[in-house]
């Protein structure tokens, strides 16, 4: 199915946004969000594992570069690569249509929960030694997102 990830995310948002809001109303925000993180965590960890197997490489730079190329399809992301090697992949995302989409819906908190939060389990899917550090995101109001992927060697 050759549909850009951003278009898939928009289709999924149509059901996820009302479903998560109904859960929040029912269970309270904290408990609902924990449930959502658990559900999406399982989904995106599996996606990370599938991605790693499909690319069949331990090269962090190569695998994450291909993942971001997919996330960016359909003009969804502008980003600059600060460094890329076998063990690291560091980029700044300077424009994000996922964030713009959720901001248009006036739901950036849900966007953070449903989109940005998924990056961590996705990274975990690449192996327990893969580490993602990110101190800020456009969705949460920053000028850029600072993705730092690293394979820990010890």
């Amino acid at each position, binding site marked *: *199915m050759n*549909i*850009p990830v951003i*278009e*898939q995310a*928009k*289709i*999924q*948002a*149509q*059901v*996820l946004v*009302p*479903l998560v809001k*109904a*859960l929040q109303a*029912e*269970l309270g925000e904290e408990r609902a969000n924990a*449930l959502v993180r*658990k*559900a*999406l965590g*399982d*989904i995106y960890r599996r996606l990370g594992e599938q991605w790693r197997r499909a690319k069949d490489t331990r090269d962090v730079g190569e695998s994450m570069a291909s993942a971001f190329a997919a996330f960016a399809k*359909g003009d969804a992301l502008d980003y600059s690569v600060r460094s890329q090697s076998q063990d690291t992949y560091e980029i700044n995302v300077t424009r994000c249509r996922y964030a713009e989409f959720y901001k248009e*819906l006036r739901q950036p908190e849900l966007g953070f929960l449903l989109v940005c939060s998924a990056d961590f389990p996705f990274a975990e899917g690449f192996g327990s030694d893969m580490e993602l550090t990110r101190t800020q995101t456009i969705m949460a109001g920053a000028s850029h997102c600072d993705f730092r992927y690293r394979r820990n060697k010890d």
Partner: protein
Amino acid sequence: MTDADEVTISHLQRRKIEGRVLIPFIQTLKEKLGENAMREVLDATIGKLAADDGAAWAETYGQTTASLRTVAQTLWAGGGAMDVQVLSESDDRLDFNVTRCRYAEFYRELGLSDIGYRVHCNRDHAMVVGFNNELELSRRQTIMEGAACCDFRFRKKA
């Protein structure tokens, strides 16, 4: 939430894309909240979405039984997703059978026809309310539940 790309994505493709997150999501809800609480929150959400879809389709295609047939034949069945056999149609009735349904096949292949019924077939009654509240749907059987065909019978309320 619409854009130019939408027209190139069939209704069936949209349901499959949605299913990729919705199905595991529902399974987690069931595991953590129990079957009844999962059903309650899911049915309410899906029902609201379906009524909104019905209202949007009425806006695009009109509120008549003929426009409902167009929705079924072009939107739902688009890209070969369903085989629809129209039995009779007038101003106050529309009868058709669905004799093949790839939505049902998608869920059956996953072994999840019960979830498929909840998130797909279940929409139709709520959809009619949004589409035209003077119409009602009776349907005794569906392919999703294992029948040979789905018997859609729309009537203008007495």
